[in-house]
């Protein structure tokens, strides 16, 4: 009988662990790493936000990782990291890839692209001589076209 109860307890623990992310509390160390709120919030939030076609084990992994790291790190570091990671070439390519579609943009969208060209220019001016020459010309052609399209809009 005691063995049966023990087996049921183990089965319950495994079930909770698999479906709701609750750890198997086998020792003090693992119990200490788990936030007190994790079990309470996990079942309520994770299934609601997971996509409908998420794999069956998705809810089990979400609570274990998200609460521990996301609130503390994302807001503080994300914007700065994003700024530094968007290098000049990525920005250049993003702006100038739009020239072929430029006739379909609104004047405001075009002006925003021109502003981005102007903001990018000082960054390209810091490159070495040959690269600077090539990319300043390319940026200028791109900017000039955008301005041309703004000025060609009906009513201008």
């Amino acid at each position, binding site marked *: 009988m005691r063995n049966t109860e023990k087996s049921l307890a183990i089965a319950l623990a495994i079930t909770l662990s698999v479906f709701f992310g609750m750890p198997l509390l086998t020792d003090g160390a693992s119990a200490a790493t788990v936030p007190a709120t994790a079990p309470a919030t996990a079942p309520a939030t994770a299934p609601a936000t997971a996509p409908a076609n998420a794999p069956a084990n998705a809810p089990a992994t979400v609570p274990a990782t998200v609460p521990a790291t996301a609130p503390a790190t994302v807001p503080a570091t994300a914007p700065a990291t994003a700024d530094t990671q968007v290098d000049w070439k990525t920005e250049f390519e993003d702006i100038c890839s739009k020239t072929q579609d430029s006739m379909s943009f609104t004047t405001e969208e075009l002006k925003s692209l021109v502003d981005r060209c102007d903001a990018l220019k000082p960054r390209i001016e810091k490159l070495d001589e040959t690269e600077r020459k090539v990319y300043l010309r390319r940026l200028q*052609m791109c900017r000039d076209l955008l301005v041309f399209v703004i000025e060609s809009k009906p009513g201008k």
Partner: protein
Amino acid sequence: MLILAAVDEAHAKSIAAPQDYGKVIIANYSARAGLAPVVFNHWVHRARYTCRLCHVDIGFAMAKNATAITAAANKKGLYCGACHNGKRTYNGKIIFASCSGTTARKNAACERCHSPKKSTVQERDFKSFAEKMPRNTSGNGIDWEAAESSGRIKPIDVLEGVSIQKPRIKAQKDFVIESKGTGTSAVVFSHKKHAVWNGCEVCHPDIFPIKKGATKYTMRELEKGEYCGVCHDKVAFPIVDCRRCHTGGKI
């Protein structure tokens, strides 16, 4: 009268041997380096790549010697070195490296571009290439537009690592340019035909900084190398081929 005078001058200018039509002599720094000027053949390159790729993505200026290409830039993979780097391939063949300085026969390598004398190889290559192309009576005798539309040439428009991935261009509508007071037929300008080779930035706003109909331009200006004359009469078919633009028949 003005038109005829302009056309006569243009005609005199455009009587080049077919293989030499569109040839550009580049001589910014060659003499200082003890080399002959670079002889650049447009036909070799336009058979393989679009105008846009070289004049927008790689950054070659439209005017002769305005780019001021250096060997150092080529070695860094810019300008000629964007393709001529000894790694990039065309049709399965490696494109020779420009200004590499690593070849045992250095002079021979340099002379592929810095050509001190008329190249008989180029002449032979041109004849062999032209034989397979749709013919035309002017320029270098090749109807490039028909060559492209019939699939005999498939100019590459994107160079990996250099070009920006862009959506396919939505060509603007064709339009009519009236030939006011000249008695000639109007020009029907095809945006579609031009956009295939040039994209938008080659022409706007550097060559055509104008709103449709806002500026009048003359054959004299074209002959001087402005507007259409930036390409036509130099690389694209010459302006003496009147009926290609003035399609109505009245010249």
